[in-house]
């Protein structure tokens, strides 16, 4: 690869702890095995090392970052380093005074997730009564002068309410609205039969979002993220493996994406063992899927290989058992039939039960891994 690689964004997963139990959580299924957390001093060093490497954006996330009592110190350090810092949160647990303190310390943006516009439906997905509190917190965010991003993960039970989500975002004065369809890795894959929409449902929602984007232009940025299962050509997952993003898991593992440590046969390193700069440039896990040498056909000779980088490695592994396979969402993938079968199944009634995120790996996923 001739282009010099330089990370722009650090995704700091401060903890896997979270009071919510969302059925599509993007944390790995076995997050319970990674429950040791970096201390404040180490995170501060890591922020400095990330800035030295070229990082300008910092996402403080998790789990729920608010459960860390050193967020204040990390925000102050990020501000000192002139990082653009975004707190990605459920809004729970938070007091208004603490949020005001974050503002004084220089936090740039707050992103709050709302699971649905109907309180009971939102609480059902989150596995916790939380909707009304989230709305209250979103109000504080605006009162205190922060820009507000509202994020709603979309699936078959709430896609028909996208217009209501837009109206809620307008009422809350959101500056940015992320209408992000669930991506079927991690917990969302476990619950795919209950979450994956039909194409018709998706296209209706896309139309609503497009109208809202037009109408709100200049006031609210409206994003609509399509689920990979309904594209014909894969997305550039993470803008390509080890090209723009560094994810650091709560225990200090340095990763190219949120779930890379669930791929077998890759070795990732911890910020406790080596400086970030060395890990970014030399770590075997980062080297594994950088560039094009690893690519199989049809990627290797495809003229989109420098556009989509072969798609998502985690999705390839989860569906085919091979991390180096072409992402099956690609219509050129020999495994594309797996996606077509899932799309057909989306037209059938959903199972009654969803599996909530929790510290134990779901039984079905354990069986599949054996």
């Amino acid at each position, binding site marked *: 690869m001739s282009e010099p690689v330089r990370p722009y964004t650090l995704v700091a997963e401060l903890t896997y702890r979270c009071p919510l139990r969302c059925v599509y959580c993007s944390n790995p299924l076995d997050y319970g095995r990674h429950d040791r957390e970096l201390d404040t001093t180490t995170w501060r060093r890591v922020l400095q090392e990330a800035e030295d490497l070229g990082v*300008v954006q910092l996402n403080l996330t998790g789990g729920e970052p608010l459960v860390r009592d050193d967020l204040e110190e990390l925000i102050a350090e990020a501000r000192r380093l002139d990082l653009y810092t975004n707190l990605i949160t459920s809004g729970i647990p938070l007091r208004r005074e603490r949020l005001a303190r974050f503002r004084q310390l220089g936090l740039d943006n707050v992103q709050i997730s709302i699971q649905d516009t109907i309180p009971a439906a939102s609480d059902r997905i989150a596995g916790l009564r939380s909707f009304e509190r989230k709305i209250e917190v979103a109000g504080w965010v605006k009162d205190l002068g922060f820009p507000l991003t509202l994020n709603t993960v979309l699936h078959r039970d709430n896609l028909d309410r996208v217009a209501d989500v837009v109206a809620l975002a307008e009422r809350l004065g959101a500056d*940015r609205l992320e209408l992000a369809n669930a991506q079927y890795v991690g917990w969302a894959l476990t619950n795919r039969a209950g979450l994956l929409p039909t194409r018709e449902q998706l296209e209706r929602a896309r139309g609503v979002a497009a109208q809202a984007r037009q109408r709100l232009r200049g006031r609210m940025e409206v994003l609509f993220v399509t689920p990979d299962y309904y594209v014909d050509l894969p997305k550039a997952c993470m803008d390509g493996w080890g090209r723009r993003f560094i994810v650091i898991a709560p225990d200090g593992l340095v990763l190219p994406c949120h779930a890379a440590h669930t791929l077998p046969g890759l070795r990732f390193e911890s910020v406790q063992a080596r400086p970030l700069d060395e890990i970014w440039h030399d770590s075997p896990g980062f080297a594994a899927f950088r560039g094009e040498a690893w690519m199989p056909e049809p990627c290797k000779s495809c003229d989109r290989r420098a556009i989509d980088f072969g798609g998502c490695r985690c999705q390839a592994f989860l569906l085919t058992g091979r991390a180096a396979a072409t992402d099956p969402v690609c219509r050129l993938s020999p495994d594309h039939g797996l996606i077509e079968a899932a799309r057909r199944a989306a037209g059938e009634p959903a199972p009654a039960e969803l599996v909530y995120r929790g510290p134990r790996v779901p039984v079905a996923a354990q069986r599949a891994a054996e």
Partner: protein
Amino acid sequence: MDALSRPRLAAKARLRFDRKSSRYMLLYPERGLVLNPTAADVLQRCDGERTVGSIVEELARKYGHEPPAVEREVMGFLQTMADRGLVQAAP
């Protein structure tokens, strides 16, 4: 946006000098724009106090160009940034 508007950066946007590229960047949630020197000159003056007219005058002087040509360019750029929600006219 007209000559009397007083543009300022949107609440979500922040300018930052990037040592790696020796350019200014405009950062906002999940995104960033690497700015060419002229764009950076314009955005650094979007403080909610200067009018578009005075920004044009300053830049015309700085670059030794005719104000009408500078005005066309600055207006076009600011309108694009306003449409993207990154610049607003101060009330």
